[in-house]
Each structure stands twice: as C-alpha cells, then as structure tokens.
C-alpha cells in the first residue's frame, strides 16, 4: 500500500508537466489545425535555455525559468510568422511535413550547439527529500508540480477570462466568422502558437533539472504530448489536463507493477487503444474532424 501511495505521488508530480505539454499542443491543433511535430523541440529548447542561463551563465535558477518561457514564446512566434503563415490553406499533411522538417532542423541545431553529452542542471533545492510518513518527495519535484499547476491555471484564465482568450475561442469555433466580426486572425494564430510553445518550453524548463538535458529529449516528449492530446480529444483543453495526469498514472503504475522497460510504451498503447475504441478522445462532447 505504501508503495502504491508513492507511485501515486510520483504520478501526480509528473502529470502536471505532461498536462502543460498537452495543453500547448492541443491549443495549437484546435485553433490552427496544425499537428505540431516541433512541439518536443520547444520542450528541449526550454530545458537548454535554463541550462544556459542557470548553469552556463551562473544566474538565478528562477530567473532562468522565466527567461526559458519567454524565449519559448518568442521562438514560437518566429516559427509561426516565418513558416506557418506562408502555409495557410495548405492541407494538413503538407503542414505536417513542414513541421517535421522544422523538428529535424531544431534538434540538430541543438546537437551542434551543445553536443550530444547530457547536461545536468543544479537547482537551489535541498537534495534531501521531504518525508511524510511512508512516502518521500523531492523538493524540486514539489516545486515543479506547483509551477505546473500555476501555469495550467494561468492558461485557463487566459482562455476563459481575457479578450485574447475570447478571440481564440471564437477562432476555434469558426475562423471565418471570427474574422468577419473583426478578430485579427493572423494575430490570433501567432499568439496561439507562441502560447503553446511557451507552455512546451515551460514543461522542458521544469523537467530539465529533474532529468537530464539532451538534444533528443524532445522526441519522447512530443510523442507523449500526442498521447495526452489524443486521450483528451484534439483541441480539448480540459481533456488535455486530465489526459496528462492519466498518462502519468498509467506510466507510473505500468513501470511499477508490469515492467519498467515498457514505461514509455504505455503512452503509445494508450494512443492505440483510445483511437481504436473512442477516436474522439475520452472527453469529447462532439465529433471532431481529424
């Protein structure tokens, strides 16, 4: 039972960052109809940004996190303006190919700049874990969860209670009508991609210190983000949040009780099973077109 509690706790810690990744991806897909293969690279970008500022330059760790999120948003905006804006009206497969190209370019640029050796980020949190009864939590992971929850809440507020969020929701429902009502669709697309990228960079910035930073860290992150998004239904933000925690639980329990080697396979098995039995995701209210 104690072991189960510990697994549960680990899953909650991880679930927050998975949810962040998923929300970013699902926003971009829902509003722009873009399957963002570069999502994992923005995650890796966030982690390297923290490494650069906190470890290489020796500045404050929390400052590094903020820098990573802002840099992620700027990079996202750049990708949108330089690539995706030119692809408006192209079919979804073509855009996917362009994003795969962007993914290859970004990953290898990281490899070129930083080399293939994994980097570790030292944090200001104490090494000794917080022990509560039978379970223990590292302070860093507790902070990661708190930061992830704050960012998730901030995304909700942004989308539900701001003018920008309202325009984003309107674009999601019907881009043409929104444009006729005076919504600046181009600006909304750039903002959406920037926000989605910032969330991915934030997830990377938070998980980078927990694990190690490598140029290929984004690959699994991207595929896990897809799993989260499919669980929740493409374009569904609440679904992505719940999906992030479900994926973390399944992975943690699968690794704990079945086989740790298949931890990363759990996400893909979820994708396959969900798509075969409930292709619109677990929480979809209405049929969505893939």
């Amino acid at each position, binding site marked *: 039972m104690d072991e189960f509690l510990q697994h549960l706790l680990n899953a909650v810690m991880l679930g927050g960052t998975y949810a962040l990744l998923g929300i970013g991806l699902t926003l971009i*897909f829902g509003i722009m109809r873009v399957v963002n293969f570069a999502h994992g690279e923005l995650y890796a970008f966030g982690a390297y940004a923290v490494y650069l500022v906190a470890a290489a330059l020796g500045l404050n760790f929390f400052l590094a996190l903020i820098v990573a999120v802002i840099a992620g948003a700027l990079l996202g905006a750049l990708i949108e303006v330089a690539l995706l804006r030119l692809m408006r009206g192209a079919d979804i497969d073509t855009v996917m190919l362009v994003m795969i*190209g962007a993914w*290859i370019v970004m990953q*290898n640029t990281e490899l070129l700049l930083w080399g293939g050796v994994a980097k570790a980020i030292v944090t200001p949190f104490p090494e000794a874990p917080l022990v509560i009864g039978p379970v223990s939590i590292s302070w860093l992971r507790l902070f990661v969860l708190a930061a992830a929850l704050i960012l998730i809440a901030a995304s909700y507020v942004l989308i539900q209670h701001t003018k920008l969020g309202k325009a984003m929701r309107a674009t999601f429902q019907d881009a043409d009508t929104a444009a006729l009502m005076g919504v600046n669709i181009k600006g909304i697309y750039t903002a959406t991609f920037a926000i989605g990228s910032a969330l991915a960079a934030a997830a990377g910035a938070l998980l980078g210190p927990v694990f190690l930073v490598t140029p290929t860290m984004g690959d699994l992150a991207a595929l896990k983000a897809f799993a989260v998004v499919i669980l929740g239904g493409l374009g569904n933000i609440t679904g992505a949040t719940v999906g992030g925690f479900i994926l973390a639980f399944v992975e943690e329990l699968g690794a704990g009780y079945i086989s740790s*080697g298949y931890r990363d396979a759990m996400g893909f098995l979820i994708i396959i099973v969900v*798509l075969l039995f409930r*292709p619109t995701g677990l929480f979809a209210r209405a049929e969505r077109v*893939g």
Partner: protein
Amino acid sequence: MKRALPAVWPVLFLTVPLWLQDQYLLHILIITGIFIIAAMSLNLLLGYTGQLSLGHVAFFGIGAYASALTTLGFDVDLFGLRVVHQPWPAIVGLFVGMIVAGLSGYAIGRLSFKVRGAYFVIVTISFAEVTRLVALNWVELTQGPLALTNIPPYTLGFPGLGDYTLWNKTAYYYLVLALGLIAYVVIRRLVGSRIGRAMIALKENETLASAVGIDVTRYLVLAAVVSAAMAGGAGSLYAHYLKIIDPDIFLFIYTVTMVIMVITGGKGTLAGPIVGGMIFGFLPVVLRPFAAPAVQWILYGGLMIAIVFVLPRGIVPALQRFVANRPSGKSAGAGGLE
C-alpha cells in the same frame, strides 16, 4: 534522345561494379538501393492511397528482425512455453521476413485505417515506437541493445550449379538491383491495374469512391500488406548485408528519411522514390567532407521544407511538366521518366 533515355538506365545500373572501383561508394549504393526499395513501398501508401503512414520503419525493422532470427535461431520462454527455433538458411529468412512484415501490415492496417488524417499519422507512429520498445526490451529474443550479430549472408542455390554465398559487395549490389527491379515491376503492375485505379480513386475522393462501390478499407489494407511485405524484404536485405541489427533500426528518423525520399522525388509517381532516394542516399557522401552529421541533418530538414514550398509535388512531376511544355520536345506523352 528522350526515347533513348530509358534504355540508358539499365545499362548504367548493370555495369556499375565494373567501373566503380571505390568500395565505399558501392556500399553507399547498396544501402541507398535498400532504402529506395523501402521508399517505393512507402510510396504505395503515401503516393497512391494518400495515407501519410509515419510508422513505415516498423515493417522494415520487423522484416530485418524476423529474417535475422529465422537465420540465427532462438530459444525463448513464452509465458511458460519454451519455443525453440533451429537456424534456417538465410534466404528462407528473406521470405519469412516478408511474410511476417506483411502480416503485421495486415494487422496494423486493419486497426489504423479506422481513423484518418492526424489520428492515422499518430497511430502509425505509435505502432513503430511500440515495436522499437519491444525490440529493446525483449532481450531473450532480440538481445535488446546488445544487437543481433553475426547474421550470415544469403546463400543462393542454383539447380545443377551448386550454391553461391553472397560474400562481397558486388554480389549484394546485384541482388539489391534485382529485388528493386522486381519491386518496381510489382508496384507498376499494381497501380496500373483495377486495384491501383481503386486506390487512386479513394485518394482523390474517399466518399465518392465508396459511393461507387469501392470497398475502401479492403483496398487500403491490401496496399498496406503489399507495402509492408516489400519494406520487410528491404529490412531483411539490410540485416543480412550489414550482418548486425539493433533496436535503433526502428528509429523515427528512418521513416523520415523514407518520407523525404518519396516527397522530394514525387509521391504517386513510379520514378519519384528512385530519384529522391538517389539524392538523399548520396547527399551525405557529397556533404561529408565539409559538414558534420548534425549540419547534414539541418540541411536535410531545410531541404524538406524548401521542397514542400517550391516543388510541392516533387522533382519528377516538375520535370515531366517541364519536358511536356518545352516547345521543341513535342514527342508524345509526359511519361518518359515513368
């Protein structure tokens, strides 16, 4: 000149080992040939049925592992049941590899053709990743990250002439060329047949195709089976030529390589994967002296984006249009390159 052009190619390809002394270039040509076969098989799905399958490397890898394990033999414990397989001749492995890959194509096709578009893409990637993780973790069967080594070369038996084992690169070059030609002819006949027209019809307009009585799922699954079996054959060639395979054979980057080859050359054309395959097979050789691998990949990615923007239909259709529109070249038909 245009009519003479198609006849030049077989002569050129057949004589390569006679005038190409550089063993490294011959090696690149063999690997490129193997990937061209895989790209041709992907083109059947991507180009002719219009399904962006990004899990194609799964069939390549399954073919490679099935062939290697058939040849090497194995002894595994399957839920308490001991399964022992004695080594078989390597050439049997080629067929077993194709059959196992084809069966996987059937199973995966049956399941994933329930969904379309972005969902289909993601489900195919997931299948490939699951196969990679199985190859990595089922150590008893696959040796996991330690790789399967000492995979023996093929031995071809000629009735009355005795056996011939493919020891050198020249022999493998001709084998790849012969199998590539067979794959080309099979695809050409398939897409030119009733089945091929049905596939193209459902790519153009699936709703209309099913309305006129085309059993969409049946044709998609058929394409997946043929495509997977060919990719499995290419995987078997890869395994027996290199004599070593590890779970990295399932990496997504190999699928991307095949996709780039098809898109660059021209999806839905017979010559497209060959042209694209040659370009991306030899690009590393050209770039190697002055570009690190990471730089090469950056150029690949950039080139992929550029191709989608500049030549969205690929090189072969662009050339065909160019030849057809040239005022002097009024010889009939734009199919010269096909």
